C-alpha cells in the first residue's frame, strides 16, 4: 500500500505567456502509516503536489502509482482511488452546502454507494472523532464558527474511511487554541485509525511536534525529505528558502554556542527542556565535585 511518484512534472497553462512549472521532477514514495509533513513557502508547489496524490490533477509528465497501479491508466477507477486517498482542501469550510451538518458529512459516504443509514453511522463516528458535539449535528453548517466548520469539513472526508488522509493547511485562519485542538485531533486519528496522514503547512512549529517525516518543497522541487530532526539541522539553508526552523532550534543552538552542552537537535519544547535540565545537572554536578 503506497503512493509512488516518479519523475512527476506539472506545468500550468503550457504554451502560453502564463506558463508556470509548478512541479519539477518529483520522486516520492509514501508508504503506509506514516505521519508526513509537507512544508514550503507560498507558491512552492505543495498544493499542486497533493492534488496529484488522489489524481485530481494529471501530471504533465511522469507516473503516479497507487499500490503499484498507474492511476492514469485508461481503465483505472479514479473515483475509487479518491475514496481511499482523502483530501481536505484549504479553507474546507467553503465546500459545505447541505441544510444540516450530518447530511453534509454524509455526502462522501453516500457517493461511495452507502445507504443513508450506513452513511449516517460513518458520519457520526467521523464527527465525534474530530471533536464535534452531538447536539450540533442538526444545525446548519453556515451558522457554525470557523473552527467548527473546519471540523465538519474534515469529518466530511474522514467519513469516507480513507486509508490516507491529506490535509492542506487545516489550521489556516484559526486561533492558536483552535489550531492546537485540530492538530491534536489529527494526531489522535493517526493513532486510532492507523491511517497515513499528510499534513501540509507553512509553519514549522505546527508540524515539528507531530510528524515523523518532513518533506520540504522549494520552487517545485523537493529540497529535503527526512525526519524533522535531520531537516532542522539545515536551519540556515531553510532560512534562505524563506522558511525557518522552530524557534526552539535557534535557542538550543545559541545555548550550545555559549558553552552549555545541550542536544542542539531537539525539535520540540519538551525535548529541549529535558536536554537543558540534563545539561544543567551535569554542569552543577561538575561544580560540586
Amino acid at each position, binding site marked *: 500500500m503506497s503512493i509512488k511518484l516518479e519523475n512527476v512534472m506539472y506545468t*500550468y*497553462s503550457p504554451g*502560453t*505567456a502564463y506558463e508556470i512549472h509548478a512541479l519539477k521532477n518529483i520522486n516520492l514514495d509514501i508508504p503506509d502509516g506514516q505521519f508526513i509533513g509537507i512544508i514550503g513557502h507560498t507558491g512552492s508547489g505543495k498544493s499542486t503536489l497533493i*492534488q496529484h496524490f*488522489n489524481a*485530481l490533477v494529471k501530471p504533465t509528465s511522469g507516473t503516479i502509482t497507487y499500490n503499484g497501479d498507474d492511476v492514469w491508466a485508461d481503465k483505472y477507477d479514479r*473515483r475509487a482511488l*479518491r*475514496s481511499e486517498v*482523502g*483530501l*481536505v*482542501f484549504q479553507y*474546507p469550510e*467553503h*465546500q*459545505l*452546502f447541505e441544510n444540516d451538518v450530518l447530511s453534509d458529512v454524509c*455526502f*462522501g459516504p453516500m*457517493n*461511495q454507494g452507502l445507504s443513508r443509514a450506513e452513511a449516517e453511522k460513518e458520519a457520526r463516528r467521523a464527527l465525534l472523532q474530530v471533536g464535534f458535539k452531538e447536539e450540533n449535528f442538526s444545525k446548519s453548517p*453556515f451558522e457554525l464558527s470557523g473552527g467548527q466548520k473546519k471540523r465538519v469539513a474534515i469529518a*466530511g*472526508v474522514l467519513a*469516507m474511511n480513507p486509508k490516507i488522509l491529506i490535509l492542506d493547511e487545516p489550521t489556516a485562519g484559526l486561533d492558536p487554541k483552535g489550531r492546537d485542538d485540530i492538530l491534536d485531533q489529527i494526531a489522535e486519528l493517526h493513532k486510532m485509525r492507523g491511517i497515513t496522514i499528510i499534513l501540509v503547512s507553512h509553519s514549522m512549529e505546527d508540524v515539528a511536534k507531530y510528524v515523523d517525516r518532513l518533506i520540504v518543497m522549494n520552487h517545485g522541487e523537493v529540497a529535503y525529505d527526512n525526519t524533522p530532526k535531520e531537516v532542522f539541522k539545515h536551519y540556515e539553508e531553510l532560512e534562505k528558502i524563506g522558511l525557518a526552523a522552530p524557534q526552539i532550534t535557534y535557542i538550543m543552538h545559541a545555548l550550545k554556542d555559549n558553552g552549555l552542552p545541550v542536544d542542539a537537535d531537539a525539535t520540540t519544547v519538551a525535548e529541549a527542556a529535558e536536554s537543558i535540565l540534563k545539561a544543567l545537572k551535569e554542569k552543577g554536578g561538575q561544580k560540586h565535585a
Partner: protein
Amino acid sequence: MLKDITIGQYYPADSIIHKLDPRVKFVGTMIFIVSIFIFNSFPGYFVAGLFLASMIALSKVPPKFMFKGLRAVFMLLMITVIFNMVLTPGDIVFKLGFIKVTREGLIMAGKMAVRLVFLISGSSIMTLTTTPNQLTDAMERLLRPLNRIHVPVHEIAMMMSIALRFIPILMEETDKIMKAQIARGADFESGNIIQRTKNMIPLLVPLFISAFRRANDLALAMEARCYHGGENRTQMKPLKYERKDYMAYLILIAYLAAAILFRVFKL
C-alpha cells in the same frame, strides 16, 4: 480543469500597440470592422489584410494567439461557407445530386469567410493588447457624452470592471470547489441531464455563497474608502492622448478613406 477558458485574454508585451491609448484601439477596432464591410472586393480585402497583418506584427503578440479565437468560431465559419456555397443561385460550377455549387456562391462564401476571419482576428488585437480595465476606462470616456441624458456612465463602467475582475476569481473558486467535491466522491461527468443538474448542487451552493460573501466584502471595503459614484471623481491614471495616439487616428482615417474610395470606384 477550467483554466483553459479565458475571457479578456490579455497578452503582456512591450509594443507600440500596447502603449496606445485604449480609446484609439477601441475606435480603431470599430473602424476596422466597418471597413471590412465597406470593402467589397478581393483587392479591397487584400488592403484590409495588409492592414491587419501590419497591426499583428506591430503588436508583438505571437500570431498563434491571434488565431486562437478563430477556433471558437470555426463551426460558424464552416456553416456560413457551406450555406453560401450551396444556396446562392447562379452559374453552376459542379453538381452533386441535388446540391449545386455556383460560381457566385463560391465568391460569396469566400467573401464571408474572409470577413469573419478578419472580424475575429481584428477584435482579438484589441483584447490581446488591452487589459479589461483599460477597456472599461476607454468606454467610460467615450460614452461620457451620454451623462447629459442622465445615463450613469461611470456606474455602468464600474460595474463592468468589477464584473470582469471577478471572472477569474470565480473561475478559480469554481475549480477549487469542484475539486473539493470530486475528492468527496462527487461526479460531475456522468448521468443524464436531470441527474447532472442535481449533481451540480454541491458546486453551486458553495459558489453562490462565496460570490455573495465576496460582493459583501468588496462593498464594505469600498464604503470604508468613502467611495461614492462618479461625480467629481478623478482617476489615478487619467487617459490622455499623446502624439502617437493622434498619429494612430490619422492612419485610421486614411485607412477608412481608402476603404470608402475602393467602394466608390468599385475597385
